């Protein structure tokens, strides 16, 4: 955390009272921000196709809420409304995608033709939505205010815990035996084995209520078939799993944060309610510095990285959604919000839950990062206390993208380099180079210990999401 950050935020954060915020923000919403919200490429494309004035009527706005009617193929137009402060969407269309193409189109119009939205009293269908929203917000607040009131009979709870403990213990024992057995037989023939070998063990771990272990075992299958160097990677992963079981066996003797990390690895972490009710909240101005969504077999996982501007702490929010279901909350890249986060207990806390938040404002100045050596040293220290870290946030300052054949690297002013993830699209590498124009930029990405997956770039007064 540096002074400049705090100052830049403060001059920015002195935005007027609630009613004014929508207006302040509108100037800053760009099409890129809006399109970043699209659930998939097709929605982005269709949304753009509908972002034409002739498709819309009754456009209006009040404070941070905008609305309009879009003529679809049917007789009655679709009614679309957005609260841009969060943003939150609603549309009368039957689409399961969220936000739907109409919402995206309306938002795009707002970004590109702010003047066509007449300030006026909202029609009934908008008022209705606003009322239900505020009611829901109240309920939520009530629920949060008395989280433990509904806790069930403590003795029944203790019984359930004991039962699970037994199951997990048995699972861990079984896994240890299996691992030792693999070592006894030798690993040489592993690549010839089918995926079922691993799946069978993984499902045993699911039965033992240790889904985290199941996930670790499934990763073995991929490694076994990953080509050159597989034996090193396989043994690393086997050692890692063994270490988890080793730690779990002597859980009580370990410090509480380490216990918590091990539980997370087992897949027996605290519930959201437990985290919210037992852990302290950390208030800060949180800037969304990176976001990515992965889809695995219809399960969408969104990782949102935030940086607390006063505490210089990173927080990772994980959101899950099935199929075309929307994520429950929206965090826009480059927005900054006064919010309280509650961290999952860990030797190196990163994952967090949102407790409360204020309206978001856009902050386009780059946050200040570190050079590569400093950032990696930070990672090394974090790794030493929490060796389970899979993705570590790196915010790097003054780095230059470099191409080496098919590979992309970044280099800082000290001449130190880091490889970029081989998973990035070649187009992204070129985009990065185009942005830099041979000059250094600020970059945020996820470091997995081997390579960096770039997510966001800041340059002068702009930021860019790399998709």
């Amino acid at each position, binding site marked *: 955390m540096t002074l400049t950050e705090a100052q830049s935020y403060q001059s920015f954060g002195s935005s007027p009272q609630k009613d004014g915020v929508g207006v302040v923000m509108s100037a800053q919403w760009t099409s890129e921000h809006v*399109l970043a919200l699209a659930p998939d490429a097709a929605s982005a494309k269709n949304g753009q*196709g509908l972002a034409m004035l002739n498709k819309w009527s009754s456009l209006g706005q009040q404070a941070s809420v905008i609305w309009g009617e879009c003529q679809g193929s049917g007789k009655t137009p679709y009614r679309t409304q957005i609260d841009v402060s969060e943003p939150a969407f609603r549309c009368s269309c039957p689409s399961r995608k969220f936000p739907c193409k109409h919402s995206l189109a309306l938002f795009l119009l707002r970004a590109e033709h702010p003047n066509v939205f007449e300030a006026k009293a909202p029609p009934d269908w908008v008022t209705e939505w606003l009322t239900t929203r505020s009611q829901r917000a109240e309920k939520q607040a009530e629920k949060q205010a008395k989280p433990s009131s509904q806790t069930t009979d403590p003795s029944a709870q203790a019984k359930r815990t004991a039962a699970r403990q037994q199951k997990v213990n048995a699972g861990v024992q079984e896994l240890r035996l299996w691992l030792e057995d693999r*070592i006894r037989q030798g*690993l040489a023939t592993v690549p010839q084995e089918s995926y079922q070998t691993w799946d069978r063990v993984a499902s045993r771990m699911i039965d033992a209520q240790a889904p985290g272990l199941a996930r670790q075992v499934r990763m073995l299958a991929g490694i076994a078939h990953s080509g050159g160097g597989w*034996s090193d990677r396989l*043994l690393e992963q086997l050692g890692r799993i063994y270490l988890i079981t080793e730690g779990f066996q002597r859980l009580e003797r370990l410090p509480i944060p380490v216990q918590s990390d091990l539980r997370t690895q087992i897949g027996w972490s605290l519930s959201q309610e437990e985290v919210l009710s037992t852990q302290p909240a950390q208030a800060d101005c949180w800037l969304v510095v990176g976001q990515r969504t992965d889809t695995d077999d219809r399960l969408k996982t969104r990782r949102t990285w935030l940086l607390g501007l006063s505490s210089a702490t990173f927080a990772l929010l994980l959101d899950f959604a099935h199929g075309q279901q929307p994520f429950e909350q929206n965090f826009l890249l480059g927005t900054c919000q006064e919010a309280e986060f509650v961290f999952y207990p860990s030797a190196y806390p990163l994952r967090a839950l949102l407790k409360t938040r204020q309206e978001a404002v856009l902050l386009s100045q780059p946050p200040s990062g570190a050079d590569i050596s400093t950032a990696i040293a930070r990672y090394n220290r974090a790794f030493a206390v929490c060796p389970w870290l899979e993705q570590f946030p790196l915010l790097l300052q003054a780095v230059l993208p470099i191409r080496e054949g098919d590979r992309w690297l970044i280099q800082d002013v000290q001449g130190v380099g*880091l490889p970029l993830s081989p998973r990035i699209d070649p187009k992204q590498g070129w985009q990065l180079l185009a942005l830099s124009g041979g000059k250094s930029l600020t970059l945020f990405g996820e470091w997995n210990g081997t390579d960096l997956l770039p997510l966001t770039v800041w340059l002068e007064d702009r930021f860019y999401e790399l998709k």
Partner: protein
Amino acid sequence: MSLNKLAEGDAWQKVVSAALLGTDRQPFTLPTAPGQLGQFLPQLAHLSSEATLLTAAAALALHKHAGWLPPQLPVPAPIPHETGEPYDDLPRCSPRAARLLQQMLQGQHAVVLPEWLILAAQRGQRVPELELPELLDLGKQRRDLRAKILWVLGQRGRWLAAQNPEWKYAVTVATEEDWETGHQAARELYFQDLRANNPDRARELLQTTWKQEVASDRAKFLETFSIGLSMADEPFLTAGLNDRGKEVRRVAADLLARLPDAPLSQHIATHTTRYLTLVPQPTPTLQVELPDTLNASLIQAGIEPKLAQPISEKLGEKAGWLFQLIGATPLTVWEDWGMTPVEIVALVRNHEWEGVLLGGWALAAQRQQRSEWSEALLNRWLTENSGEMLPGVSLENLFEILPNDTQDQFLTQMLSADRNPLSDSRTLWFLRQSRQEWSAVLAHWVLLRLEAQIAQTAQSPTNYSWELWTALKDFARFMPVSLLPEAIKLQTLLPAHSPWSQSLEAFLTLLQFRQDIVQAFEIAGGS
């Protein structure tokens, strides 16, 4: 790499080998390692062989991982806070314009991408950074767009292009070296460019390698002479009439026929005028004789003794010769009668040899790029709907010769004269061939005719033209965007389930998209 690191790597390799082999075959012995790691490992010795191996593997992997240091790269480090030339000589286009470009690069409404590029160039704006790679990739495939892409790259785009050999086209121009040593495609490209900029130099360059080129390449290079053709090329082309390659001779003759002042054209003209005589009194009439023989000098000049099908089916041998002779004769020869092309064309109405004469003049007009003749002939055949037409006469080529404004006027005339012009496939073809936006007058006529067509279909649903249905979307490329409100009115005329609704929707969407582009450039550009 330090000795410690080497020793550590060695320890790891020993563990991996043992794991591959299996402790059943050989019990595991702990490797030695330097430093604290070396002190730690022996503490595992009391465990079972398998447990020792797995724990040692975990410890070594963690140790290696936690101590990893990023490497110093062999390339020079960037200079912090560089000064010097700012990269961005041009302002970035507006975010809205950028988004529209993105849409087109993703394949939506890509046909109007050239218009975007032209507007950006006119405003002196550049493509935003993130769009550069895709645009440069597009130029790799779309040669026709390259010149326009170059306008909007800005200094940054050119800098980027220089980093990728595949985008070489954007930074380097072909040189004479490409001509001497490049592969055939590069040579052709260079030659074409040179013909456009310095036709004399191009000819001299070709002369230096002429004898080494194979016949098919000679013909290909010679065809390029149509770019920047002038009398300076005449001696070289005349020499080409004696080339060993038949195709080379044909191309040379064809090119010479485009040079009315060439001695060869004059030579042919002296022959042709023997067979065509104007009798001025009492009313001007044209007397036509057919040639009896074809002498060797004419054959050498490219007049074919036997014409190919299908035209040979329509014309006798001698009429075929006359047709070719007229086609190779400078049109100025006939203008010397003191008449305009329109008057000359009118002379042969209902003439015994009408088809031969009109066809010959059409050929000559194409070769000599004479738009007055093209217009006269097109009017004769299309708007007056009269005149015998030989097979193989290309109205499309005649139309292409017309200057843009004349094309526009010509189309306006066609649309205003005929009652149902949009059901005619040739009219549709001409409309889609336009090189520029239609004039407001022409565009109005198109809308009016569309309206009529839609009304007709409403009355009898089977009365609708599939060709117009497919052509309609293309019309949006030529319709002035200022007419969008009028175009939208057409939609209100549509009855429910009209067969036109989908096609009209596509037309309006594209037109709307073009208007969006225009508006996106009317907003002040970004920075």
